[in-house]
C-alpha cells in the first residue's frame, strides 16, 4: 500500500511543481524503525520528488542534546524548513491529513521568501519588542 494517496500526491505535485526558490527539509527522527518513521520518510520523499528545488535531509539519529539545542528543536520527530536562511519554522510530528495543505503552503512561502502576511500586519508586528515563540497545536485529523 502506498504511504501517500493519489489525492495527496496530486496535491503535492500541484502545489510544489513551480517553486521559485530552494527549500531544504531537514528531518530529525528516531533511529528506531517504526510505522511512523516509515510514513514520515515516504511523505517527505514524495514532497521532495515534486520539485528539484527541494532538498531532503533525513537525520535518523539518537537524541543529541548539544546538536538539537544548536538547531533549536525541543523534541523529535521534528522537521526544520530552511530557505536562504532559517526562518525559525519547526514542525513536530507528521504533517499529513488536514495539515498537509498547510505544510505545503509553508514550503511555498519559504521558497518565495515571503511570510504571506499583509503589509499592515508586518508593520504592526514590527512593534514587537520582545522575542516571540509561538507553539501552534494542530491535528492531521
Amino acid at each position, binding site marked *: 500500500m502506498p504511504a501517500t494517496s493519489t489525492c495527496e500526491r496530486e496535491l503535492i505535485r500541484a502545489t510544489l511543481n513551480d517553486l521559485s526558490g530552494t527549500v531544504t527539509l531537514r528531518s530529525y527522527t528516531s533511529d528506531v524503525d517504526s510505522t*511512523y518513521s516509515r510514513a514520515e520518510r515516504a511523505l517527505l520523499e514524495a514532497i521532495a520528488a515534486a520539485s528539484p528545488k527541494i532538498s531532503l535531509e533525513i537525520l535518523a539519529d539518537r537524541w543529541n542534546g548539544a546538536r538539537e539545542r544548536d538547531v*533549536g528543536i*525541543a*523534541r523529535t*520527530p521534528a522537521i526544520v524548513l530552511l530557505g536562504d536562511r532559517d526562518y*525559525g*519554522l*519547526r*514542525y*513536530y*510530528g*507528521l*504533517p499529513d491529513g488536514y*495539515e498537509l495543505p*498547510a*505544510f505545503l503552503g509553508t514550503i511555498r512561502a519559504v521558497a518565495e521568501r515571503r511570510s504571506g*502576511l*499583509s503589509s*499592515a*500586519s508586518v508593520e*504592526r*508586528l514590527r*512593534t*514587537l519588542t*520582545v*522575542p*516571540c*515563540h*509561538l*507553539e*501552534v*497545536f*494542530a*491535528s*492531521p*485529523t
Partner: protein
Amino acid sequence: MSVDVIMVPMFPYLVVRHQVSDIPTTVVNGGAKLVGARDEADFVGQLLAATTSR
C-alpha cells in the same frame, strides 16, 4: 520570532502541559493562549496584546 507547529497525536503530554482544549490553539511564549481559528488582523492584534501584557 520562531514557530513550532505541533501535531497533537504525537505529543499528548504537551496538550496536557498547556491545557489545550481546542484545535488550533497557539501558545505565546509558553503562556497566553489564542484559541481557535481567526482572521489575520485579529490574530496579530491578540498576539501583540499577549506579548505586551506579561
